[in-house]
């Protein structure tokens, strides 16, 4: 590609050559004018000898044009098909939102010619912020030489992204010719959801000695460590359970009973319908739901519960069967990172998937906006309850997720409040329908989705929903 400088240079050279021709013509023109009685030499005396300029101008034009031609040949030979080897390294390629990623780009000139000016730009998705360094560099590359540059990105929002392509702009030393080449090298980066709520929870646990202390126990008799009560000895009881002190005091054989320690099987069900994609840029309802889901997964993992994940809309986006291991937690986090909003919401699809694949009792904590048809929601709940699937719903109050009343004018706020009241009225109707089946519904705003998730989990543990 010829740059503007190149065009200007070429035009100047051509102008010189054309002017040398014009000088010849001017002499002829003067002769013609003289023949019709108009003598131009009276006010332009030099016109009759303008041919004196022709040769120097032609020489000057030739020099410029030749120089241009040499540059052109050089550019065509070495710049048109540059042999560049470009590699990109990303450390780490998986991180949590808000964390930093180091990107290093190595460029090697495999050709035999020196590339005078190479501009390499690595394109970065807008879900990242360049925190340190720059994603482009301008340098010269002698043959067989390697140049490396790095920059640090800050991931802003969860998701799977591709860093790239790389755009290489090669210019000659004069800046007359330019070759732009796009090198399709992509590096995948998976950004996990914001881990801050989990970190806060860990911190609180560290400070308070664990605020979920004891919640993993189910209040029923069994073999545990916490004392439940005393009862009379039966012949089938093991001797080791006899409380000898109490027996001596009361004069009959008594045995100790303990609280049973049972774990629950939890399915974290996240609505990934198109509606959940609503909200602010980089902070949609789905993002909040995923924050909650991440915390649930972490809590279940720490409490040694079995936990699985269902991402659904009108189809199952991802189903991860309930298990309990560190690699399983990572699998769940990875699935949450890749969740995308699409399709219509259908709770029935999610419940059918759980019941079909896992027939034993379990608990499903559903994070949704309850914006599907109330009839179908009720049908789904009925189906789940009939199949002994315990359900707790965490329902987002959509208007508060998609608009910020604090930034509204008085008129807008009044309008918003009227709409919000209407929305709440409908929500109450849906809740009444659901509550009939003994299903708990927590209405949540953006600020209290994490406390709501914690509360839902603690309550479920206390009641023993989904206990195995």
């Amino acid at each position: 590609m010829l740059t503007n400088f190149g065009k200007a240079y070429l035009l100047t050279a051509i102008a010189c050559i054309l002017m040398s021709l014009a000088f010849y013509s001017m002499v002829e023109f003067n002769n013609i004018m003289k023949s019709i009685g108009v003598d131009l030499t009276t006010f332009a005396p030099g016109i009759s000898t303008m041919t004196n300029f022709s040769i120097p101008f032609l020489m000057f034009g030739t020099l410029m044009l030749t120089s241009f031609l040499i540059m052109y040949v050089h550019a065509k030979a070495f710049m048109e098909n540059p042999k560049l080897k470009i590699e990109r390294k990303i450390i780490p390629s998986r991180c949590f939102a808000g964390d930093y990623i180091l990107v290093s780009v190595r460029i090697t000139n495999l050709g035999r010619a020196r590339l005078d000016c190479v501009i390499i730009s690595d394109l970065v998705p807008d879900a990242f912020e360049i925190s340190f360094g720059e994603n482009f560099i301008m340098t010269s590359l002698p043959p067989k030489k390697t140049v490396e540059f790095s920059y640090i990105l800050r991931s802003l929002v969860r998701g799977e992204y591709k860093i790239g392509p790389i755009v290489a702009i090669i210019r000659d030393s004069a800046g007359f010719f330019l070759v732009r080449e796009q090198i399709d090298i992509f590096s995948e980066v998976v950004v996990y959801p914001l881990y801050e709520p989990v970190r806060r929870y860990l911190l609180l646990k560290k400070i308070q000695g664990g605020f979920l202390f004891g919640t993993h126990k189910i209040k029923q008799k069994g073999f545990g460590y916490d004392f439940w009560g005393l009862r009379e000895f039966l012949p089938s009881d093991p001797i080791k359970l006899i409380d000898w002190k109490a027996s001596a005091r009361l004069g009959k054989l008594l045995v100790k009973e303990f609280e049973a320690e049972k774990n629950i099987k939890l399915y974290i069900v996240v609505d990934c319908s198109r509606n959940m994609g609503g909200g602010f840029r980089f902070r949609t309802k789905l993002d909040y739901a995923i924050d909650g889901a991440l915390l649930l997964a972490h809590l279940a993992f720490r409490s040694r519960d079995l936990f699985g994940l269902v991402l659904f809309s009108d189809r199952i986006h991802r189903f991860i069967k309930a298990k309990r291991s560190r690699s399983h937690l990572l699998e769940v986090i990875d699935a949450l990172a890749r969740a995308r909003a699409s399709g219509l919401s259908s709770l029935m699809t999610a419940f059918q998937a759980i019941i079909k694949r896992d027939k034993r009792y379990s608990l499903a904590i559903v994070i949704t906006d309850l914006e599907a048809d109330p009839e179908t929601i009720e049908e789904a709940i009925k189906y789940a309850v009939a199949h002994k699937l315990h359900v707790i719903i965490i329902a987002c109050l959509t208007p508060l997720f998609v608009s910020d009343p604090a930034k509204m004018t008085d008129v807008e706020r009044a309008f918003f409040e009227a709409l919000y009241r209407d929305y709440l009225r409908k929500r109450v109707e849906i809740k009444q329908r659901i509550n009939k089946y003994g299903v708990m519904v927590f209405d949540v705003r953006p600020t209290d989705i994490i406390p709501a998730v914690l509360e839902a989990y603690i309550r479920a543990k206390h009641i023993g929903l989904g206990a195995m």
Partner: protein
Amino acid sequence: MMLGEISKKIKEIKMVETIIRFSMFFFYLIFIYMLFTLFKPDVINIYYLYRLILLIKYSIIFAIAVIIAIFISPFYASSASMTIGFEAAIKTLATILLFSPQDVNNIINFNNYLMSEFPYFIYELITTAFILICLLGFGSVFSGRYSYILNMTIILILLLPFSYVFDALAVEIPQISQISDIPRVINSKFAIFLIITFFFIELSRASGYVPNLLNPLKERLIRIQQMLRMLARGEVKEKARVTLQTSERLSRISKVFLKDAYTSYAFIDRSSLMYISSKLHAFIRDELKKNPRLLDNVSGIAALPSISEIFVGFIKSLLPKVFLAILLALASFSIPIFYQHIGILEVIGIEFSVMLSLILAMFLFIIVEYLLRS
């Protein structure tokens, strides 16, 4: 973190730029001297610039006076009353602008003034064009902008024939009848001037490469330097950390927050500078342990070509181009001269036609190969 090294590199780049500018300035002075001496004495004179300014001033006042006269005189008024209105406008303006009686007289008799000014007008334009060339050349030398040089060349190739047309003695130029061989062409002052001009254009182009390559790197280094300074604010010294942790004023929870912020997981406001810079700082520190050259790569120092490398590359690219250009030009001159020696055709005609055909062939090649294809 390597702030000193970056400052050193910035200084080095500035020094190279200064050297290149100074050398180009020297060449620029030669070019200007040659151009100045190409014209006969008194063609270029500041006095003509003064006359030109005066002419522009009179023209503006004349135009304003005409407009005022048109507005203050009714359309049915006689030409005499129009003239009175015109003169009244001029005198009022002259009084406001403190003009001398000579100025007023010149504006009133603007036609006569213009006719008497015409012979000087050519020199006024030549002087103006000369000053423009000087300024553009100077601007190019000191800013490295090649567009100035190209603008300067265009003005130059228009100025020379223009001054010759209206004053055949203004420019010293060899007679076409004297051009019969290469030494005669090259020995003429005019040809030497054109060759120097060509060298000046080529050198500006080539020397512009170095600042064009180094300037963005210098700016990058300055930006990185600022980033590093900002980042340094987030760096917490070991001593300070201990003091904060043992301070009784801090609650237990805030201590944990601060400790966390220092070790890269902050619970302070996520948008705060302390949060971002401390976390980033911790990340860089960790990465530096794995790759000690990290900051070189981030700042661009690793990609900075060495100064000697740039100069070698610069000379390597410049010299063959200039020599080839001169050789080709000489060859195009030699062919017609050869023909002249064997007595086939008249020298000027054949020179012209052969050179022109060569040039047209080149031009066609470029058009077909490049412009049409792109």
